[in-house]
């Protein structure tokens, strides 16, 4: 991202954050849902799209963030609750990443599947922290002494955190560490040959991504006011992988587009179902459309919506350039 773009992004985000106070409650709900999902998707894209480590434990990791933030928030901590959730996420993510020191590709993906299952089990059984199957009720977030209770408030907080995440990640990828991520993704052997410490690089990817996912989980906890094991099951991980694949692996903009797509699609189908008076079938229709769209996208544009947008843009701009040449 160049300097001009950075300024533009900051401006847009600030306008959105300020404008979100004027939104209706439902619109604010949609805005923070998309923003939180985008934060999580950015973090997952760092891990999968930029560092090449496929993880199925995203859902459980969001859960870790939500439970950590819930417990800290209920104990009366201020914004520290969000930071604490981030640290918890980073810690657990580092633990999940440990097998990645020895495993690659597919085997590591299966190991994260195991991590997801084990964490889900812990959510259900470690009752002093998680309150078991009934779930942990979370009191509203307090930010510098002010209790945030309105959906509009959460929308603007989510947008600001999304902005910070985006700026941080696009800065990170231009540092030496960020370049090392890309080399590890392309070939671990080459990375080793270049003198990159592969294990340490991977571990950083897990820690950074885990911190951001923990923060996103905290926001999920504070906005839904309840953390229960079912909300952080494997299907949530699948939703996030769908986001970054539909949007585009290794593209920050793609993460945002994917989050918008995956969050708003069910809402749109819900509206459509209510409008057509087939409310019973809505859930099935939603899932059906989700499944079929994932497949269609993967077949026709495996590089995601962001790439589709780019190729459309060049298709529309190229003729004018040629025209300009022939005229000139």
């Amino acid at each position, binding site marked *: 991202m160049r300097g001009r773009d950075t300024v533009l992004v900051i401006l847009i985000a600030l306008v959105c954050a300020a404008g979100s106070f004027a939104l209706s409650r439902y619109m604010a709900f949609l805005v923070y849902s998309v923003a939180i999902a985008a934060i999580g998707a950015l973090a997952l894209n760092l891990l999968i799209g930029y560092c090449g480590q496929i993880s199925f434990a995203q859902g459980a990791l969001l859960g870790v963030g939500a439970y950590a933030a819930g417990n800290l928030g209920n104990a009366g901590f201020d914004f520290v609750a969000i930071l604490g959730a981030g640290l918890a996420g980073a810690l657990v993510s580092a633990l999940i990443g440990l097998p990645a020191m020895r495993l690659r590709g597919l085997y590591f993906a299966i190991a994260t599947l195991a991590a997801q299952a084990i964490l889900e089990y812990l959510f259900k059984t470690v009752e002093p922290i998680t309150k078991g199957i009934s779930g942990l009720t979370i009191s509203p977030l307090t930010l510098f002494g002010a209790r945030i209770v309105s959906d509009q408030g959460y929308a603007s907080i989510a947008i600001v955190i999304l902005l910070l995440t985006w700026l941080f990640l696009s800065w990170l990828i231009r540092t030496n560490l960020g370049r090392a991520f890309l080399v590890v993704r392309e070939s671990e052997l080459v990375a080793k040959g270049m003198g990159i410490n592969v294990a340490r690089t991977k571990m950083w990817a897990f820690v950074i991504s885990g911190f951001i996912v923990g923060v996103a989980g905290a926001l999920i906890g504070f906005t839904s006011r309840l953390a229960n094991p079912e909300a952080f099951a494997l299907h949530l991980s699948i939703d996030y992988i*769908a986001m970054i694949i539909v949007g585009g*692996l290794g593209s920050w903009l793609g993460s945002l587009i994917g989050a918008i797509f995956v969050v708003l699609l069910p809402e749109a189908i819900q509206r459509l179902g209510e409008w057509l008076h087939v409310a019973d079938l809505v859930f099935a229709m939603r899932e059906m459309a989700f499944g079929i769209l994932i497949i269609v996208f993967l*077949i026709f544009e495996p590089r995601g919506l962001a790439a589709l947008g780019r190729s459309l843009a060049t298709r529309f701009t190229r003729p004018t350039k040629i025209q300009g040449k022939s005229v000139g």
Partner: protein
Amino acid sequence: MFFIQLLSAGIATGSIYALIAIGIVLIYKCSGVVNFAQGAYAMVGAYVTYALTKLGFPALVAVLASMMVLAALGIATERLVLRPMLRAPVVAVMMATLGILIFAKAICLAIWGPDQIAFPKIFPEGSINLGGIFMTYNYVAAGVLSATLCAAFLAFYQFTSLGLMQRCAADNSRAALAIGIHVSNQVSIAWGMSAALAGLGGTLLATLNGLSLGLEAIGLVAFPVIVLGGLTSLGGAFVAGILLGVLEAFTDGLLTPAIEDFLRAYTNVYSVGALQQVVPYALLVLMLLVRPQGIFGRRGTERI
């Protein structure tokens, strides 16, 4: 006695796991795709059997017909979804199979609803008494049938000419092409066969646990099985399936009560929950760290 009771129940469910896992391994060997939709095939297979018996077909016909339907479904997935994605990255292909899983689940939800359905009785009711061990016919039939089928499939893969062509295509697709094997047809056949096996596995599982959308979870339980057995070894998947079934039965019947007794005596923790659901995964992590190629896998296969 209780010990042998648990052992036999574990072998019965374990051989169903083996049936599902063999399908995943077969697909992986042949096309390099990790199929997350295997659980969906099992679920659809069970629902199709249910629908056919409801239409009045005898049980045997219904089961065979549902295997046929599933074989067609497997081939259709391979041709329509996986073939256009030959050059896509691994994670995209995995995601596509997850898309199939989501789609299949939604279809079943739309047609049959979210509630658990009583599965028609395919096997006679009652139980047999083998020297003090009581087993319902359901368990006996599920165990014997799936174990036999696994063994028959392994024999087919090892000793028939089609099995030889399958192995050739899986081992080195270029060489297979050079000696005149139609590799892409072989891949389709592999998908068809594993979907049919999964369909049968799903039907058998439904006779034990009832019919619901939750059946697709078997596809995930199969992953510890295939890692344990070695991702590329069919025999390994069979052995690991039975091993894991037995382990689950023992965890449920012996280990969990023992741990809970201990905890209740010394702490105020009351329950450890469904421990048998995480034991396979804990074992999986351990296995990956100690011996990533699995019990029967060859060294180097974990490097993909």
